[in-house]
């Protein structure tokens, strides 16, 4: 199937570019003075976090349109975006504590940003479990759409939690109203990494969408 092949190629390109991100971040980007080498986790943590949040927003938007239009392509896209979003959210919840331990002195703390990110992760898990638990395709799509919209409503709280509450997690230094507070070379590496994570997200979603389509076509119709 053409869609699956396209997705595989984009994913392969993304993984090769990920190696280039590693080389650029480790060999061609300066070491931050106070945090040392641990700061380089930032180039993986932030792009993963943007796509963990972005994927849930896309799930919610696709779900809203699905409830009005009843187009199965929207439901298929929401499912694909949720599964890939879960992968990126897992990355955030693993790289975050690994970065936190040497800088904060603890793997985990129940502050607002960390707790709400964990809630986002559980929302992804719940969304996918719900899809697996309901057998009727129409009901499954409708229930999942409602949960997807709830998940989307959580994202602004995750992002703004560092402003709304006192947290250990630093304030946004890139996605904020004023200019990013990051030196040029670090910003370029971050932008490159974000581009590569975007390529990977697109490749994964196309493959996952294609997989759902193939499965639906293989299922006998009542």
């Amino acid at each position: 199937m053409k869609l699956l092949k396209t997705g595989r190629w984009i994913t392969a390109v993304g993984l090769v570019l990920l190696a280039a991100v590693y080389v650029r971040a480790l060999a061609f980007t300066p070491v931050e003075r106070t945090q040392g080498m641990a700061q380089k986790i930032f180039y993986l943590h932030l792009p993963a976090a943007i796509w963990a949040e972005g994927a849930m927003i896309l799930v919610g938007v696709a779900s809203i349109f699905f409830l009005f239009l009843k187009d199965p392509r929207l439901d298929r896209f929401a499912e694909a975006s949720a599964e890939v979003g879960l992968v990126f959210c897992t990355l955030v919840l693993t790289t975050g504590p690994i970065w936190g331990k040497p800088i904060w002195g603890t793997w985990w703390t129940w502050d607002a940003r960390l707790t709400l990110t964990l809630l986002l992760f559980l929302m992804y898990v719940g969304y996918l479990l719900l899809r697996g638990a309901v057998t009727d395709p129409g009901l499954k799509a409708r229930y999942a759409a409602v949960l997807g919209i709830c998940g989307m409503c959580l994202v602004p709280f995750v992002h703004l939690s560092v402003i709304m509450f006192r947290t250990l997690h630093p304030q946004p230094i890139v996605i904020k109203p004023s200019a990013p507070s990051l030196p040029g070379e670090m910003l370029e590496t971050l932008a490159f990494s974000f581009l590569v994570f975007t390529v990977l997200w697109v490749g994964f979603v196309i493959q996952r969408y294609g997989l759902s389509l193939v499965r639906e076509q293989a299922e006998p119709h009542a």
Partner: protein
Amino acid sequence: MPENTSYMVAAYVITAVILVGYAVILYRRTLKP
């Protein structure tokens, strides 16, 4: 070498394992949907 290099290495390795692992899982699933 700064003492927190091992944390950076761990994060980079885990990220590669998760992303490559998911790519392989997707590939295998799409071979036998």
